Every structure is written in structure tokens, then in C-alpha cells.
């Protein structure tokens, strides 16, 4: 018997808008309208501004550790392919998509300001809070999509994660579940080439991240992750497939222009030349070039937008900063639908040691005579 090919696969890479702002008109047909491109450019610019301000807030001690999104704003395009009822199950580098899907931007700031109210997603928005354990949340997207199928709801779950996240076991389980359950899920791997200091070359021996999806029966695509047209087109096709029970994995090739977080210093491990080259592929630059080449954008418009963005970002920061202090009781009250009595006692006394909480413990010890309650020297 001759040896036969048991399986063969190819992966397409798609770029529609190149670094110079040149557009592949054929591939771009029926994708983004001029208005949408202008809107995306303005939105991405606002996100960049907000990102820079968040960085400064961290440096001046008004924000905790913050992961900059700089360079990955084109991911916003996914939100144009999503319908209002669709879910977003994110990590932390797709802020631009979340805002467009309706998340108030101050919530992300609040989160990184150490405030759980930044996770209190407003009713009606199908977005889960940013996920901290890398690679774990994609399973929730598989479940969310599966639930939509069970209930017969017209919903798709988008989930976002990094190149590093594909090394976690949960990533593989999520792909497998989505595949086996025919769940309407779109996996979006933002391959920004780095996982903290770990380069893509040390993360996997696979040639692409997209090919990992093939193993689980997903449709896979690789696109230029700084290209709003390519991302939109891939995401829109993925929605159509998802609704037919075919999940997709899209690998977006992008680059983390900043440090991993404000606690990181990428100069320790990253070649400055690589960063310089990546700056030339910035999604903002190419989108603006494209708009200008089409006479859809002028220097005046740019100037006016910068002023608008400044004001808008100031507003966002004010909303995050001027919020009243959280109540300590929230720590307890948020735990369960109904608080157990012992937990309520901890809340009410802010104490875990028993003395001072049960007066009979002390009166029995000393007989019936009244005595002064124990005084805290620390409070004296």
C-alpha cells in the first residue's frame, strides 16, 4: 500500500491596508465604509491618548500597574464586526475593541486604580471583566457560545488573548470545547511577538499560532494585526461561520510597542532596532496615510481631533479619579448573594480575634463584676 497524506493544511495570511497606507481595493470591497474608517481612526487616536495618559498617571502614583495597549489599537475593528448582542471575553490589550462595544473607558482605568468597580460591567453589555490568569478565560467564551447555541440565541462570543496564552493548557481545552460543541466562538490571538520577556520564538516551535486551531477543527486565519480592514474582514467572516456552528481562530500579527506593563522595562531584553521597525507598522500611521490619500482627512481635521481627544480623555480620567472612595463593607457584601452570619460579623467588627467580640467570654472569666472593656494601646 502506498503511504497517503492523512492531513494537509494551509493557512492564509491577509493584509489589505499596507504600511504605506496602500489599500488592496479588491479585498477591501464591501468591508469598511469611509465613515467607518474615519471613525476608527479617531477612536484609535483617542485610545492612544488615553493609553499615554494612563502611563503618566501610573508614573505619578495615581494608577497601579498598567499594561499599555499602544500599537494594538487596530483590534477595535473587531467591534465593528460584532453585533450589540455579541459577547466580548477579553484579556487586557483589547481596550480599543471593548470601548467600541460600549464599555465606558473609565472602567478600565478604575480597574488598574485598584478598584473592583472597574469590573462592574453595566447591565446590557455582554462583556466580561479583564481576566488576570493568562489563558484561562477563553474557556468561558466556549461556554458562553455554547449557551447561546443551547438557548437558540443569535449570539457570538469573541475572546481575546496573547501569543503567550496559547501555551496554557486551558487555551487548548477552550478550542477543543468550542470545536466539539459547535459553539459560536471567535478566538482572537493577538500575537504581539512577546509575552513579557519571552519572545515568540521561545513560546512555541510552531510556525504560526493560527495552526494550533487547526488541531481542534477550527477555521483559522492569520491577518495583519495593524490593519483595520483585514481584521474587520476576518472577523465578519468568522461571525458568519460561528453562526453556522463553526468556530474560528484569528491570529493577528501585531507588536507591543510599550513595555509589558509599567512594572516592566523591555530594554532589558528587546532589541531597539526591532522596536524601531515595528513603529513604522503602527496602525495609526497607516490609517491616517490612507485617509489622506483619499482626501478623507486633513491637517485641520487632525488638529481638531487632537483637541477633542484631549478633552474626552480628561473627562474619562476625571470620571475615574473623582469617584467616591469604595466602602470597606463592599469587600464583604460582594461575596455572596446572602452574607453568612460569621462573615457579617467580620464585616461589622473588622476583627478576626475573638476577644472584644463576645462580652460573656470576659464577664464569665472575671465573675459577675463589671469591668472596663479591653483598651487597644494602638488606639490609645
Amino acid at each position, binding site marked *: 500500500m502506498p503511504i497517503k497524506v492523512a492531513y494537509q493544511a494551509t493557512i492564509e495570511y491577509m493584509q489589505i491596508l499596507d504600511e504605506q497606507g496602500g489599500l488592496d481595493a479588491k479585498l477591501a470591497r464591501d468591508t469598511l465604509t469611509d465613515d467607518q474608517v474615519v471613525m476608527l481612526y479617531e477612536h484609535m487616536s483617542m485610545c492612544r491618548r488615553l493609553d499615554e495618559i494612563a502611563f503618566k498617571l501610573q508614573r505619578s502614583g495615581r494608577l*497601579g*500597574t498598567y499594561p499599555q495597549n499602544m500599537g494594538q489599537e487596530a483590534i477595535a475593528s473587531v467591534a465593528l464586526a460584532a453585533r450589540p448582542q455579541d459577547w466580548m471575553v477579553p484579556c487586557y490589550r483589547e481596550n480599543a475593541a471593548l470601548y467600541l462595544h460600549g464599555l465606558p473607558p473609565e472602567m478600565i482605568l478604575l*480597574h*488598574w*486604580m*485598584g*478598584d*473592583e468597580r472597574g469590573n462592574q460591567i453595566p447591565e446590557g453589555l455582554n462583556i466580561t471583566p479583564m481576566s*488576570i*490568569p*493568562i*489563558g*484561562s478565560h477563553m474557556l468561558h467564551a466556549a461556554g458562553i457560545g455554547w449557551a447561546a447555541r443551547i438557548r437558540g440565541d443569535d449570539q457570538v462570543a469573541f475572546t481575546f488573548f496573547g501569543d*503567550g*496564552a496559547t*501555551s*496554557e*493548557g*486551558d487555551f487548548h481545552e477552550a478550542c477543543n470545547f468550542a470545536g466539539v460543541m459547535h459553539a459560536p466562538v471567535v478566538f482572537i490571538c493577538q500575537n504581539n511577538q512577546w*509575552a*513579557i*520577556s*519571552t519572545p515568540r520564538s*521561545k*513560546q*512555541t516551535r510552531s510556525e504560526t499560532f493560527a495552526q494550533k486551531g487547526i488541531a481542534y477543527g477550527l477555521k483559522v486565519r492569520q491577518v495583519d494585526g495593524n490593519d483595520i480592514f483585514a481584521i474587520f474582514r476576518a472577523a465578519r467572516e468568522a461571525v458568519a461561520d460561528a453562526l453556522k456552528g463553526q468556530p474560528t481562530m484569528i491570529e493577528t500579527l501585531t507588536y507591543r510597542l510599550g513595555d509589558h506593563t509599567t*512594572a*516592566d522595562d523591555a530594554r*532589558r*531584553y528587546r532589541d531597539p532596532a526591532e522596536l524601531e521597525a515595528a513603529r513604522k507598522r503602527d496602525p495609526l500611521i497607516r490609517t491616517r496615510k490612507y485617509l489622506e490619500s483619499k482626501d478623507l482627512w486633513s491637517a485641520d481635521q487632525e488638529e481638531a481631533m487632537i483637541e477633542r481627544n484631549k478633552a474626552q480623555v480628561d473627562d474619562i480620567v476625571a470620571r475615574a479619579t473623582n469617584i467616591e*472612595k*469604595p466602602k*470597606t463593607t*463592599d*469587600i*464583604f457584601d460582594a*461575596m455572596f448573594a446572602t452574607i453568612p452570619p*460569621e*462573615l457579617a460579623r*467580620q*464585616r461589622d467588627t*473588622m*476583627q*478576626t*480575634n*475573638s*476577644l*472584644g467580640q463576645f462580652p460573656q*467570654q*470576659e464577664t464569665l*472569666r472575671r465573675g459577675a463584676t463589671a469591668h472596663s472593656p*479591653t*483598651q*487597644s*494601646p*494602638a*488606639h490609645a
Partner: protein
Amino acid sequence: MANLTLVQAINLALTQEMEADESVVLLGEDVGLNGGVFRVTEGLQQRFGEHRVVDTPLAESGIMGAAIGLAMNGIKSVPEIQFEGFLGPAYDQLVNHAARYRSRSRGAITVPMTVRVPVGGGIHAPELHSDSPEAIYAHTPGLKVVMPSSPYDAKGLLISAIRDPDPVLFFEPKRIYRAFREEVPEDEYTVPIGKAKIVEEGTDVTVVTWGAMTIQCINAMDSLPEDLSVELIDLRTIYPIDVETIVESVSKTGRCVVAHEAPLTAGLGAEISSLVQERCFLHLEAPVQRVTGFDTFMPYYKMELDYLPEAPRVAEAIAACAAY
């Protein structure tokens, strides 16, 4: 002798053990060129090479499971889990394999592995970067659990851990990674696993603690009246727990306060309180007091100091216990 921080002392212990024993291999996320996110392994890859200080893919189950295999086949593996909150994916490997191999193979297969994990709160870190899960692992048969509170002990304990024939979970309290310095000998020395340290001798109340809480307890003692004599015990090893030192102390003082960052319910305070009740019943003058985190999550950093049992809460409990 050099005046070192906890981070530097751990780095020194790793350097010396790697020099002394070629079979010691470090692995984990970002531990190589970047020196770890806390710089604990700074300079080690440059010194010992990429084959002995290994940047792994982002996979805690992978790191732990592979470290077990390495240890089973002649490599003294020292995996790092970047933060205690990410022990989750490694739990199955650690608890269902590392801990059990010796026993289930009746000694035929052993796992001489030391798992390094930064632990605890108080550094304004994001979610899942500030927890204290030591009780979970102390509750796991087959694991040794260590948490130093000083540079000197950190070096000596880590060397003991690496040389130990069984898996050791070595928790590093990140709040005091760089909080103070201490004289740490260049020369080789060990601090035995399973032996607590009496930080300060006293006669009225015994305070039992470990890790970064040791510093909070010292601060609490400073705020108490001078005629209140407190004996402070730093456990250093959480499992196997040094019962003798605790029993001896409480038998003398008759009063005991346990302080830890982790939640109250089923925390180690409960275990210690139980031991004291069983072994010192007739000496006890007051109910054992537990000063701990609440039965909630460690809040995001705006409220983390409301959660942590800081020095004033510890002082209050000591005073109440002494006055009882």
C-alpha cells in the same frame, strides 16, 4: 558578610547551590535574561547559561510537571511560579503528582524539587498578585512548605530546600523583598527546615507568625506598653510545623496569638490554635487569638490595607489576650 535584601540573599543562595551542584536547574517564565519579574534570578542565566536557567513557555502546569520529571531523572529542579495566584494551573501537578510520588511508589520514585513562589500582599499589585495560599499546601500531605521572613533565613532555608530529597514549596514574601537589609554570610550555611525561630523572648504572651507578618508583629510589639513581655515566634517552616517551640513557649506564657495574612476560616491559625489547645490546655490563661485576613478575597489595592492584619490590629489582639 554582606548587607543584603531578601532578594539578594535568595539570589546568593541560588548562585552558590548552582555552583556547588551542577544538577541544579532553574526554570520558569522570564527567569532568564530578564532575571525574573522581581529580579530574584538576575544575572544567573548570564553566569550559568541558558541550559541551566531556562525561560519556559507561559504554562504553569507545564513548568511544574516538567520540573517533576526533571527531578525524577537526576536534575534538582527549581521552578519559579511568577506569583502565588498562578499556582492554579500547576495545582494538579503539585498536589496530585509531586506530593504523592514518594508515597505511592513506596520510595522508588522521589521528587527533589524546590518550587519558588513570591507570596502575599501589601505591594499595591493587581488582582491575584497578593494572596497567601500557604494553608492549602500545608494541608496537602507530602509537601514541605517554607516561608522565610529575613535575608539570613532565606539563604539558609533555600539551600536546605534545594538539598532536601522531597518537594519543597518555598514562598517568598514579596512585601519584604527589598524592605530591609541584613548581614548574610558569604560562607555556606543552612537553616534547617522544620525549625521555628524565637525572634524575641518574652514571658506574657506568645505570638506565632511567619513571612511578612513577622514585621507587622514586631511593629505591633513596639507599640505595646514596655511592661508587656511578648515572645515572638517566626515559624519559618509552615510544614512540618515546629510544634515543640510553640508548645514550650505557650506553656511558659499561657497566652497565644496567631497572626497571618490569609483568611481566617480553615487558615493555619486554626491549626496552631488547635495544637495549642491540645498540648497546652492546662497552661492556657486566655483563648487563643487569631489575627488574620477576612474570609473574603484580598481586595484590589485601594482597600488592601483594610484587609491585611496590620500592626494595630495585631497589637489590639495581643493587648486583649494579655489583659484577659
